[in-house]
């Protein structure tokens, strides 16, 4: 499955980038996130509950940040597995400074999904992924609003 999209954040690039390195922010933004622990600067451990149509299950896995070029770009590598299958994905995230204290996030990526999630849920995965991205960005917007306004 390929994913692609963009989102406009109303904050300077450094602030947005910093937020993406904050497990508390990410953990709060991702729906169904039950646990997110920072192992070191670029590795996280997470437990995520996912519901795709008739399939709902917990996935536990790792999130790594590689090829970090602060505050321009980062590559996310995700590996998770659970009772309903597995997800492996790579996401390439770019932060474009638009100059007016706004940042355009662009992402492309590919996810490899297996097990029950694929064999029973594939029809719904695209739309679930889309709605998940939408929720994440909405929540991040709120978090950002709070943080940016505080500063």
């Amino acid at each position, binding site marked *: 499955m390929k994913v692609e999209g963009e989102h406009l954040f109303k904050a300077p690039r450094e602030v947005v980038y910093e937020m993406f390195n904050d497990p508390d922010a990410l953990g709060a933004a991702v729906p169904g996130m039950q646990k997110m622990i920072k192992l070191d600067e670029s590795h996280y451990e997470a437990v995520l509950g996912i519901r795709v149509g008739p399939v709902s299950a917990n996935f536990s896995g790792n999130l790594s940040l590689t090829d970090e070029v602060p505050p321009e770009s980062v590559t996310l590598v995700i590996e998770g597995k659970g009772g309903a299958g*597995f997800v492996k994905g790579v996401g390439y995230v770019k932060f474009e400074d638009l100059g007016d204290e706004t940042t355009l996030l662009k992402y492309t990526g590919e996810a490899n999904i297996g*097990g*029950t999630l*694929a*064999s029973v849920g*594939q029809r719904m995965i695209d739309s679930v992924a889309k709605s998940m991205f939408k929720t994440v960005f909405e929540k991040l917007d709120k978090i950002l609003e709070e943080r940016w306004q505080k500063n």
Partner: protein
Amino acid sequence: MTGKYFGNPIKRLEDKQLLTGNAKYIDDIEVPGQLHAAFLRSDFAHARILKIDVSEALKRPGVVAVYTAEDFGDFWKPGPLQVPPPTAIPGSKFNARTLVPIAKDKIRYSGEVLAVVIAESRYIAEDAFDDIIVDVESLPAVVDLEKAWEDSSVLVHDDLPSNMAALVTQEVGNYEEAKKKADVVVARRMLIEHVAGAAMENRGFLASWDDQNQVMTIWANTQSPLTVRGSVSRALGLAESQVHVITPAIGGGFGPKVMTSLTDDVLLPWISKQLKRPIKWVEDRRENFLATTSERDQVHHCEIALKKDGTILGFKDVFYHNTGAYDSYGMTVPLNTQTHIISNYRVPNFYTQIRMVFTNQMVVTPVRGAGRSEGVFAMERMLDFAAKEMGLSPIEIRRKNLLRADELPLATGITGQDFVKNTLDSGDYLGNFEKCLQAIEYDKFIKETQPKAQKEGKRLGIGVVAFTEGTAVGPYEGCKVTVSTSGKVTMTTGYSSQGQAHYTVFAQIIADQLNVKVEDVKVITGDTNHFAWGAGTFASRGATLVGTAALLASQKVRAKIFSTASKALGVPEDQVELGEGSVSIKGKPDSAIPLGTLAAMANPMRGVIEPGVEPGLEATAYYGPPHGSTGCGAMGVILSIDEETCKPVLEKMVIVDDCGTMINPLIVDGQLQGGISMGIGNTLYERLVYDENGQLLTASFMDYLMPLATDMPKKLEIIHNHAESSLKLNPLGIKGVGEAGAIPPGPAIVQAIEDAFADKGVEILETNLSPSSIYGYLKKVEHK
């Protein structure tokens, strides 16, 4: 041949139990003390197993045992070749890599079993999956057939130099020479997609070891109970007499239930013996999609060489056949394809090559149609393409090349699934086709109906194709017929039953021979303690092989009735009359002895029976044909299709079929209608989709669409074109009908869809057409 019962539409004797919920299927069988098995299956299609940790699962209350491949020790070994490849074809290559009961070291398809959990309930057994930690190193999956064939491909079996499972070339005449002489040569690449058998009842298996008597009793919804008995006794080192396989009521077969050497029939008996407890496993629907064998999935590279007038000079078909991760079932399916490509037409030069390839997908074994559909699809489509290229009508090109009744029997020279050179025994192939054209009113459709619809802005299309159905292959089947002292008759056979009306049609044959009421004949199928010889239920062979054996056995019993009665009545045999349920001296009804009494006399409790005489009114008979038979027919379809939605609606369908003599026309029609619905489903709705990682994306009826009542043709006409069977292969003149209906819908429907869009020049090169794929074809020609 017509009797009191034979040839008549007798109502089924088995229905009442089925209709009232009294029939027992595999999941209805409960043995005291039984435990439940659940199989943890791989999420990955191709991976190396690093570690499977089951220690937490063992701690869960209610879990009795958990096994991985390691726990089976030396008992773990690859299964036998259930069907060996034919050795008769010179130069053929076959790499046997047979199914393993549970993955060890390497996972080769998504759904392969990694662990067996035994628990007090199925719910608990499945709960324990969450406790098992599976660590694997995933590998790139082999999915695309043509890429898999290349030397550069990732390997499914590391010890082989390539993914080649088999390479078989057969040729009659010389295609390349014929091509040189041809006026027209047309070449195309076509896809025949992957579909499931999808019986409404999933598979199931119950193994119960009796430690006191040292007997393994097995209930299994298998099409081949004797193969199960053989493999269990071999695997456990038991005598066959120590293994008793019983088939309960079975909720449909359609091919996949013939498969053995799977996890259930290998491991569960072993586990039952270890734990000394009965173990039951019933598959769920997702498991059925993932791990029960399926079929089709071929890529054909065809060439047809013709004279200007449309006469076929030669045909070439090199096709890739997906065997999945293992090839235990040999080459039945692609050999069926090879025999069926040319089995309707005069093809003097034919070159065909099977490229059977291993992939990271579930194993392919026969599903109703079983390679025949693919062969017929390839030929029928090529004729359509050639006709278009040459400006001929699809009807003209078929008329020119279809075999006529006086050309049969005809040896095609191609070796088939029974390892014997194929002979087309009888039938009027051209006559079937002409009858079909009349019934579908072809001329009227072309001249009036279609143009009229066109003026009204409606798109109608017509398709008419011919087909054959290779049936009734050997080696043999048998049965035993016994008259009881009650006068009731029992027939036992090793053949198992999945809804084909065996309990009625075999009884019809016997009832006529013994002059008893049909409801007084009890048929027992698929119980190895009752009858211990036979091959299995497949290839439309029940009516022919078991039916003929029933005839032969009941004829022997009939002879015994006359000889016993002659002695009892004190008259010569020609003075004995066999009335309904009794024997008497001709013209002296008072002398009547009930058949039951005669049966008691044939088995005296005191006195002597003459040397050489077997006691009882009982006989056993076997029947095996010299080669398979070939049913034949034609199908016409008229459909309408909306250009916006691309949803085809089947307005009318006609099938002309020659299945030889019919024991019961009601049952024959049911077989044809069921087969046709499967053919329609295969063409317009069903499709097993694997993604590039070998993940099956259609493992539920939400994504694997089954044909429904509203998807059937508005009118379906069945024409039997076999008033007098010309088949001399067997005494009853039966060919077989189980798969006929499933074969022609594909090419007929596709031809009709092309016809509906004839003005746009749409050319369809695959089966399994969803509205969106038809829409895709339309867009493709519009962009040209």
